[in-house]
Protein backbone atom coordinates (compact mmCIF):
# COMPACT_ATOMS: atom_id res chain seq x y z
CA UNK A 1 0.00 0.00 0.00
CA UNK A 2 3.03 2.36 0.24
CA UNK A 3 2.90 3.50 -3.37
CA UNK A 4 -0.83 4.20 -3.17
CA UNK A 5 -0.37 6.41 -0.10
CA UNK A 6 2.19 8.56 -1.91
CA UNK A 7 -0.21 9.02 -4.85
CA UNK A 8 -2.99 10.00 -2.49
CA UNK A 9 -0.77 12.54 -0.74
CA UNK A 10 0.26 14.06 -4.06
CA UNK A 11 -3.34 14.25 -5.26
CA UNK A 12 -4.64 15.72 -2.03
CA UNK A 13 -1.86 18.33 -2.12
CA UNK A 14 -2.81 19.17 -5.71
CA UNK A 15 -6.46 19.41 -4.80
CA UNK A 16 -5.72 21.72 -1.89
CA UNK A 17 -3.58 23.84 -4.20
CA UNK A 18 -6.33 24.00 -6.80
CA UNK A 19 -8.90 24.97 -4.23
CA UNK A 20 -6.58 27.65 -2.96
CA UNK A 21 -6.22 28.96 -6.50
CA UNK A 22 -9.98 29.07 -6.93
CA UNK A 23 -10.46 30.84 -3.61
CA UNK A 24 -7.78 33.37 -4.52
CA UNK A 25 -9.44 33.98 -7.89
CA UNK A 26 -12.91 34.36 -6.41
CA UNK A 27 -12.51 38.02 -5.41
CA UNK A 28 -11.18 38.77 -8.89
CA UNK A 29 -14.17 37.09 -10.44
CA UNK A 30 -16.48 38.98 -8.13
CA UNK A 31 -14.76 42.22 -9.00
CA UNK A 32 -15.12 41.58 -12.75
CA UNK A 33 -18.82 40.91 -12.32
CA UNK A 34 -19.29 44.07 -10.34
CA UNK A 35 -17.38 46.14 -12.87
CA UNK A 36 -19.63 44.76 -15.58
CA UNK A 37 -22.75 45.69 -13.60
CA UNK A 38 -21.49 49.21 -12.94
CA UNK A 39 -20.67 49.80 -16.59
CA UNK A 40 -24.06 48.56 -17.71
CA UNK A 41 -25.83 50.79 -15.20
CA UNK A 42 -23.79 53.84 -16.20
CA UNK A 43 -24.57 53.21 -19.85
CA UNK A 44 -28.29 52.92 -19.09
CA UNK A 45 -28.27 56.23 -17.21
CA UNK A 46 -26.38 57.99 -20.02
CA UNK A 47 -28.63 56.56 -22.76
CA UNK A 48 -31.80 57.54 -20.93
CA UNK A 49 -30.51 61.05 -20.38
CA UNK A 50 -29.84 61.45 -24.10
CA UNK A 51 -33.37 60.25 -24.90
CA UNK A 52 -34.80 62.70 -22.35
CA UNK A 53 -32.87 65.55 -23.94
CA UNK A 54 -34.17 64.67 -27.41
CA UNK A 55 -37.72 65.04 -26.12
CA UNK A 56 -37.04 68.54 -24.83
CA UNK A 57 -37.59 71.57 -27.00
CA UNK A 58 -34.42 72.83 -28.60
CA UNK A 59 -34.68 76.21 -26.88
CA UNK A 60 -34.30 74.48 -23.51
CA UNK A 61 -30.89 73.12 -24.41
CA UNK A 62 -28.79 75.87 -22.87
CA UNK A 63 -25.03 75.71 -23.11
CA UNK A 64 -23.22 74.81 -19.92
CA UNK A 65 -22.25 72.03 -17.59
CA UNK A 66 -24.70 70.48 -15.11
CA UNK A 67 -24.77 67.50 -12.81
CA UNK A 68 -27.21 64.76 -13.78
CA UNK A 69 -29.68 63.80 -11.08
CA UNK A 70 -30.61 60.14 -11.20
CA UNK A 71 -31.39 57.94 -8.24
CA UNK A 72 -29.62 55.01 -9.81
CA UNK A 73 -26.32 56.87 -9.44
CA UNK A 74 -26.48 55.90 -5.77
CA UNK A 75 -25.68 52.36 -6.86
CA UNK A 76 -22.35 53.51 -8.28
CA UNK A 77 -19.73 54.12 -5.59
CA UNK A 78 -18.54 57.75 -5.36
CA UNK A 79 -20.23 58.52 -8.66
CA UNK A 80 -20.54 61.77 -10.57
CA UNK A 81 -22.50 62.36 -13.77
CA UNK A 82 -21.88 65.45 -15.84
CA UNK A 83 -23.89 66.74 -18.75
CA UNK A 84 -22.21 69.28 -21.00
CA UNK A 85 -24.16 71.10 -23.69
CA UNK A 86 -22.27 73.18 -26.21
CA UNK A 87 -22.67 74.50 -29.72
CA UNK A 88 -21.89 72.11 -32.53
CA UNK A 89 -18.15 72.17 -33.31
CA UNK A 90 -17.41 74.54 -36.23
CA UNK A 91 -15.46 71.81 -37.96
CA UNK A 92 -18.71 69.87 -38.28
CA UNK A 93 -21.34 72.61 -38.44
CA UNK A 94 -19.72 74.95 -40.89
CA UNK A 95 -22.82 77.13 -41.33
CA UNK A 96 -23.57 77.55 -37.62
CA UNK A 97 -26.59 75.29 -37.86
CA UNK A 98 -28.88 75.03 -34.85
CA UNK A 99 -27.29 71.90 -33.46
CA UNK A 100 -26.05 71.23 -29.95
CA UNK A 101 -23.32 68.86 -28.94
CA UNK A 102 -24.27 66.73 -25.96
CA UNK A 103 -21.60 65.14 -23.83
CA UNK A 104 -22.38 62.88 -20.87
CA UNK A 105 -19.62 61.57 -18.66
CA UNK A 106 -20.36 59.27 -15.74
CA UNK A 107 -17.52 58.38 -13.38
CA UNK A 108 -17.32 56.13 -10.33
CA UNK A 109 -14.66 54.78 -8.06
CA UNK A 110 -13.82 51.12 -8.16
CA UNK A 111 -10.95 49.50 -6.25
CA UNK A 112 -9.23 52.84 -5.91
CA UNK A 113 -9.32 53.72 -9.58
CA UNK A 114 -11.77 55.92 -11.45
CA UNK A 115 -13.92 54.24 -14.10
CA UNK A 116 -15.96 56.17 -16.64
CA UNK A 117 -18.49 55.97 -19.44
CA UNK A 118 -18.60 58.83 -21.96
CA UNK A 119 -21.32 59.31 -24.57
CA UNK A 120 -21.36 62.08 -27.16
CA UNK A 121 -24.03 62.95 -29.64
CA UNK A 122 -25.73 65.84 -31.44
CA UNK A 123 -29.26 67.20 -31.11
CA UNK A 124 -30.62 69.42 -33.86
CA UNK A 125 -33.55 71.80 -33.85
CA UNK A 126 -36.49 69.84 -35.25
CA UNK A 127 -34.42 66.67 -35.20
CA UNK A 128 -35.09 63.16 -33.95
CA UNK A 129 -37.79 62.66 -31.32
Amino acid at each position, binding site marked *: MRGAAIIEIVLVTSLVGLMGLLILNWPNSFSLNQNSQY*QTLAKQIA*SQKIEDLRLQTYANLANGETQIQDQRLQNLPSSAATLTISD*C*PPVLCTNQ*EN*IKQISIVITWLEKGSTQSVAFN*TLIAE*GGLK
Partner: protein
Amino acid sequence: MNQTGQALLIVLLATLVALTIGISLAQRSISDLSNSAKLDDAGRALAAAEAGLERGLITPSNFTIDPSVFGNQSSANVKSSGLVPSSTYPGAALSYPPIDRSTFAQFWFADPASPGAPTQFYNPNNYSFNLYFADPTLYPCGAGSCPSIAITLIIQESGSYKFQTSLHDSRSISSCNGNQIPAYTYSIDAENPAEPLSGLSAKKYLCKYTISYPPAAIPILLRARLLISNSAQPIAIEPTGGASLPPQVTILSSTGTAGQSERRLRLFSQIFVEPIFFDYAIFSNGDILK
Protein backbone atom coordinates in the same frame (compact mmCIF):
# COMPACT_ATOMS: atom_id res chain seq x y z
CA MET B 1 -9.71 -6.34 -0.67
CA ASN B 2 -7.47 -3.97 -2.65
CA GLN B 3 -8.93 -0.39 -2.39
CA THR B 4 -5.96 1.68 -3.62
CA GLY B 5 -7.39 2.45 -7.07
CA GLN B 6 -10.71 3.57 -5.59
CA ALA B 7 -9.13 6.43 -3.60
CA LEU B 8 -7.36 7.65 -6.71
CA LEU B 9 -10.60 7.67 -8.71
CA ILE B 10 -12.48 9.56 -6.01
CA VAL B 11 -9.77 12.20 -5.76
CA LEU B 12 -9.62 12.60 -9.54
CA LEU B 13 -13.38 13.03 -9.79
CA ALA B 14 -13.41 15.58 -6.98
CA THR B 15 -10.61 17.47 -8.73
CA LEU B 16 -12.51 17.43 -12.00
CA VAL B 17 -15.66 18.80 -10.40
CA ALA B 18 -13.76 21.55 -8.61
CA LEU B 19 -11.92 22.46 -11.79
CA THR B 20 -15.15 22.61 -13.81
CA ILE B 21 -16.79 24.92 -11.30
CA GLY B 22 -13.72 27.13 -11.17
CA ILE B 23 -13.35 27.43 -14.93
CA SER B 24 -17.07 28.13 -15.43
CA LEU B 25 -16.96 30.90 -12.85
CA ALA B 26 -13.93 32.48 -14.45
CA GLN B 27 -15.46 32.09 -17.89
CA ARG B 28 -18.67 33.77 -16.75
CA SER B 29 -16.76 36.71 -15.35
CA ILE B 30 -14.75 37.16 -18.53
CA SER B 31 -17.90 36.82 -20.61
CA ASP B 32 -19.76 39.42 -18.51
CA LEU B 33 -16.88 41.83 -18.82
CA SER B 34 -16.66 41.29 -22.55
CA ASN B 35 -20.41 41.84 -22.95
CA SER B 36 -20.22 44.96 -20.86
CA ALA B 37 -17.42 46.35 -23.03
CA LYS B 38 -19.43 45.53 -26.15
CA LEU B 39 -22.50 47.24 -24.67
CA ASP B 40 -20.42 50.33 -24.00
CA ASP B 41 -19.11 50.32 -27.58
CA ALA B 42 -22.62 49.74 -28.90
CA GLY B 43 -23.99 52.66 -26.87
CA ARG B 44 -21.31 55.03 -28.12
CA ALA B 45 -21.79 53.80 -31.69
CA LEU B 46 -25.55 54.37 -31.47
CA ALA B 47 -25.06 57.87 -30.02
CA ALA B 48 -22.66 58.67 -32.87
CA ALA B 49 -25.09 57.30 -35.49
CA GLU B 50 -27.90 59.43 -34.03
CA ALA B 51 -25.61 62.45 -34.08
CA GLY B 52 -25.04 61.81 -37.77
CA LEU B 53 -28.79 61.74 -38.44
CA GLU B 54 -29.35 64.95 -36.48
CA ARG B 55 -26.66 66.72 -38.48
CA GLY B 56 -27.90 65.20 -41.73
CA LEU B 57 -31.46 66.35 -41.12
CA ILE B 58 -30.35 69.98 -41.02
CA THR B 59 -28.18 69.79 -44.13
CA PRO B 60 -28.78 66.65 -46.16
CA SER B 61 -25.36 65.75 -47.54
CA ASN B 62 -22.65 63.11 -47.31
CA PHE B 63 -20.21 63.73 -44.46
CA THR B 64 -18.16 62.09 -41.75
CA ILE B 65 -17.92 62.82 -38.05
CA ASP B 66 -14.42 61.76 -37.14
CA PRO B 67 -13.33 60.50 -33.74
CA SER B 68 -11.57 63.81 -32.97
CA VAL B 69 -14.93 65.64 -32.87
CA PHE B 70 -16.32 63.69 -29.93
CA GLY B 71 -13.06 62.59 -28.39
CA ASN B 72 -14.45 59.28 -27.17
CA GLN B 73 -13.30 57.13 -30.10
CA SER B 74 -16.71 57.14 -31.76
CA SER B 75 -17.36 58.26 -35.31
CA ALA B 76 -20.15 58.39 -37.85
CA ASN B 77 -20.40 58.14 -41.60
CA VAL B 78 -23.51 59.71 -43.09
CA LYS B 79 -24.92 59.30 -46.56
CA SER B 80 -27.84 61.31 -47.84
CA SER B 81 -30.07 61.02 -50.87
CA GLY B 82 -30.65 64.78 -50.84
CA LEU B 83 -34.21 65.91 -51.44
CA VAL B 84 -35.83 63.38 -53.76
CA PRO B 85 -37.36 62.72 -56.24
CA SER B 86 -34.90 64.97 -57.99
CA SER B 87 -34.45 66.11 -61.55
CA THR B 88 -31.55 63.66 -61.85
CA TYR B 89 -34.05 60.86 -62.41
CA PRO B 90 -37.19 62.33 -64.02
CA GLY B 91 -40.21 60.10 -63.71
CA ALA B 92 -38.83 58.13 -60.76
CA ALA B 93 -41.24 56.35 -58.45
CA LEU B 94 -41.25 56.98 -54.72
CA SER B 95 -41.63 54.13 -52.27
CA TYR B 96 -42.73 54.58 -48.69
CA PRO B 97 -41.22 52.40 -45.97
CA PRO B 98 -43.60 49.53 -45.19
CA ILE B 99 -46.55 50.72 -43.12
CA ASP B 100 -49.04 48.83 -41.02
CA ARG B 101 -52.67 49.61 -40.27
CA SER B 102 -51.83 52.06 -37.50
CA THR B 103 -50.40 54.72 -39.78
CA PHE B 104 -50.62 56.06 -43.32
CA ALA B 105 -48.38 56.91 -46.26
CA GLN B 106 -48.46 60.38 -47.74
CA PHE B 107 -47.33 61.49 -51.18
CA TRP B 108 -47.25 65.06 -52.40
CA PHE B 109 -48.28 65.84 -55.97
CA ALA B 110 -48.23 69.60 -55.48
CA ASP B 111 -44.98 71.27 -54.53
CA PRO B 112 -44.87 71.15 -50.71
CA ALA B 113 -42.07 73.70 -50.59
CA SER B 114 -44.01 76.41 -52.38
CA PRO B 115 -44.94 79.32 -50.12
CA GLY B 116 -48.62 79.63 -49.28
CA ALA B 117 -50.99 77.19 -50.90
CA PRO B 118 -49.21 74.28 -52.64
CA THR B 119 -48.73 74.95 -56.32
CA GLN B 120 -49.14 72.41 -59.07
CA PHE B 121 -46.11 70.25 -59.76
CA TYR B 122 -47.39 66.92 -61.04
CA ASN B 123 -48.83 67.58 -64.47
CA PRO B 124 -48.92 64.47 -66.67
CA ASN B 125 -50.55 64.37 -70.07
CA ASN B 126 -52.74 61.40 -69.10
CA TYR B 127 -54.14 62.66 -65.74
CA SER B 128 -53.15 59.55 -63.85
CA PHE B 129 -50.44 57.82 -61.84
CA ASN B 130 -49.64 54.26 -60.82
CA LEU B 131 -50.17 52.95 -57.31
CA TYR B 132 -48.10 49.96 -56.20
CA PHE B 133 -48.53 48.14 -52.94
CA ALA B 134 -48.02 44.94 -50.95
CA ASP B 135 -45.30 42.38 -50.67
CA PRO B 136 -44.99 40.35 -53.92
CA THR B 137 -44.27 37.14 -51.99
CA LEU B 138 -47.93 37.10 -50.91
CA TYR B 139 -48.84 35.93 -54.42
CA PRO B 140 -51.02 33.95 -54.94
CA CYS B 141 -53.02 35.77 -52.36
CA GLY B 142 -55.09 33.71 -49.91
CA ALA B 143 -58.24 35.11 -48.37
CA GLY B 144 -56.68 35.80 -44.96
CA SER B 145 -53.42 37.37 -46.02
CA CYS B 146 -54.56 39.69 -48.78
CA PRO B 147 -54.07 43.34 -47.91
CA SER B 148 -56.42 45.99 -49.17
CA ILE B 149 -55.65 49.64 -49.41
CA ALA B 150 -57.74 52.78 -49.11
CA ILE B 151 -56.45 55.88 -50.82
CA THR B 152 -57.62 59.45 -50.59
CA LEU B 153 -56.50 61.79 -53.34
CA ILE B 154 -56.95 65.45 -52.58
CA ILE B 155 -57.45 67.47 -55.74
CA GLN B 156 -58.23 71.06 -56.52
CA GLU B 157 -60.92 71.51 -59.13
CA SER B 158 -62.66 74.72 -60.14
CA GLY B 159 -61.25 76.49 -57.10
CA SER B 160 -62.51 73.88 -54.66
CA TYR B 161 -60.70 71.12 -52.83
CA LYS B 162 -62.17 67.67 -53.35
CA PHE B 163 -61.45 64.26 -51.91
CA GLN B 164 -61.36 61.31 -54.28
CA THR B 165 -61.42 58.07 -52.30
CA SER B 166 -61.04 54.53 -53.60
CA LEU B 167 -60.44 51.05 -52.24
CA HIS B 168 -58.15 48.50 -53.88
CA ASP B 169 -58.10 44.81 -53.12
CA SER B 170 -55.13 42.53 -53.69
CA ARG B 171 -57.21 39.57 -54.87
CA SER B 172 -57.53 40.97 -58.36
CA ILE B 173 -55.64 38.57 -60.62
CA SER B 174 -55.01 41.14 -63.33
CA SER B 175 -53.69 43.86 -61.03
CA CYS B 176 -51.99 41.73 -58.39
CA ASN B 177 -49.73 39.14 -59.95
CA GLY B 178 -46.73 39.85 -57.75
CA ASN B 179 -44.47 40.98 -60.51
CA GLN B 180 -45.12 44.66 -60.73
CA ILE B 181 -41.88 46.55 -61.09
CA PRO B 182 -41.74 50.32 -61.30
CA ALA B 183 -39.04 51.43 -63.65
CA TYR B 184 -36.99 52.81 -60.79
CA THR B 185 -37.79 53.74 -57.25
CA TYR B 186 -36.52 55.88 -54.45
CA SER B 187 -36.93 53.70 -51.44
CA ILE B 188 -35.64 52.73 -48.04
CA ASP B 189 -35.26 49.13 -47.07
CA ALA B 190 -34.24 48.38 -43.50
CA GLU B 191 -33.56 44.77 -44.37
CA ASN B 192 -31.25 45.69 -47.19
CA PRO B 193 -28.73 48.17 -45.83
CA ALA B 194 -26.63 47.91 -48.95
CA GLU B 195 -29.40 49.47 -50.99
CA PRO B 196 -28.19 52.68 -52.62
CA LEU B 197 -29.63 55.93 -51.32
CA SER B 198 -29.26 58.34 -54.16
CA GLY B 199 -29.47 55.76 -56.90
CA LEU B 200 -32.62 53.91 -57.76
CA SER B 201 -33.59 50.30 -57.46
CA ALA B 202 -36.25 48.25 -59.19
CA LYS B 203 -38.64 46.84 -56.63
CA LYS B 204 -41.42 44.34 -56.99
CA TYR B 205 -44.89 44.76 -55.55
CA LEU B 206 -47.90 42.51 -55.41
CA CYS B 207 -50.32 44.98 -56.98
CA LYS B 208 -50.38 47.78 -59.48
CA TYR B 209 -53.36 50.04 -60.05
CA THR B 210 -53.63 53.05 -62.30
CA ILE B 211 -55.47 55.90 -60.62
CA SER B 212 -57.04 58.61 -62.77
CA TYR B 213 -58.45 61.97 -61.87
CA PRO B 214 -60.48 64.61 -63.76
CA PRO B 215 -58.45 66.38 -66.49
CA ALA B 216 -59.25 69.81 -65.07
CA ALA B 217 -58.12 68.87 -61.58
CA ILE B 218 -54.82 69.65 -59.90
CA PRO B 219 -53.62 66.75 -57.74
CA ILE B 220 -52.39 67.98 -54.36
CA LEU B 221 -51.80 65.10 -52.00
CA LEU B 222 -52.42 61.38 -51.65
CA ARG B 223 -52.84 59.41 -48.47
CA ALA B 224 -52.83 55.64 -48.42
CA ARG B 225 -53.93 53.47 -45.54
CA LEU B 226 -53.75 49.71 -45.29
CA LEU B 227 -56.87 47.75 -44.51
CA ILE B 228 -57.17 44.13 -43.40
CA SER B 229 -53.46 43.31 -43.60
CA ASN B 230 -51.82 41.85 -40.50
CA SER B 231 -48.32 42.90 -41.50
CA ALA B 232 -46.57 46.02 -42.76
CA GLN B 233 -46.68 46.49 -46.51
CA PRO B 234 -44.71 48.69 -48.93
CA ILE B 235 -46.48 51.38 -50.95
CA ALA B 236 -45.14 53.28 -53.94
CA ILE B 237 -46.37 55.89 -56.40
CA GLU B 238 -45.05 55.99 -59.95
CA PRO B 239 -45.57 59.05 -62.13
CA THR B 240 -46.89 58.53 -65.63
CA GLY B 241 -47.42 60.64 -68.72
CA GLY B 242 -43.96 62.20 -68.68
CA ALA B 243 -44.42 63.84 -65.28
CA SER B 244 -42.39 63.68 -62.09
CA LEU B 245 -43.25 63.79 -58.41
CA PRO B 246 -42.09 66.88 -56.53
CA PRO B 247 -39.06 66.65 -54.20
CA GLN B 248 -40.43 65.69 -50.79
CA VAL B 249 -38.27 63.08 -49.05
CA THR B 250 -34.77 62.84 -47.66
CA ILE B 251 -33.34 59.40 -47.05
CA LEU B 252 -30.41 59.31 -44.64
CA SER B 253 -28.16 56.48 -43.63
CA SER B 254 -25.86 56.99 -40.66
CA THR B 255 -23.33 54.41 -39.53
CA GLY B 256 -21.88 54.95 -36.08
CA THR B 257 -18.70 53.14 -35.07
CA ALA B 258 -17.04 52.70 -31.68
CA GLY B 259 -14.51 49.99 -30.91
CA GLN B 260 -15.74 46.79 -32.49
CA SER B 261 -19.36 47.93 -32.62
CA GLU B 262 -21.19 49.40 -35.57
CA ARG B 263 -24.74 50.73 -35.60
CA ARG B 264 -26.52 51.71 -38.80
CA LEU B 265 -29.63 53.89 -38.75
CA ARG B 266 -31.77 54.73 -41.74
CA LEU B 267 -34.22 57.55 -41.80
CA PHE B 268 -37.01 58.38 -44.22
CA SER B 269 -37.80 62.01 -43.58
CA GLN B 270 -40.68 63.66 -45.38
CA ILE B 271 -41.26 67.38 -45.38
CA PHE B 272 -44.66 68.66 -44.34
CA VAL B 273 -46.55 65.60 -43.21
CA GLU B 274 -50.10 66.73 -42.54
CA PRO B 275 -52.21 64.76 -40.08
CA ILE B 276 -55.64 63.82 -41.39
CA PHE B 277 -57.50 65.87 -38.80
CA PHE B 278 -56.08 69.10 -40.27
CA ASP B 279 -57.53 68.39 -43.71
CA TYR B 280 -60.72 70.36 -43.22
CA ALA B 281 -58.76 73.36 -41.94
CA ILE B 282 -56.07 73.30 -44.61
CA PHE B 283 -58.07 72.24 -47.63
CA SER B 284 -60.93 74.63 -47.14
CA ASN B 285 -61.51 77.70 -49.23
CA GLY B 286 -63.91 79.32 -46.81
CA ASP B 287 -63.77 80.21 -43.15
CA ILE B 288 -64.30 77.52 -40.57
CA LEU B 289 -67.28 78.45 -38.43
CA LYS B 290 -67.78 77.06 -34.98
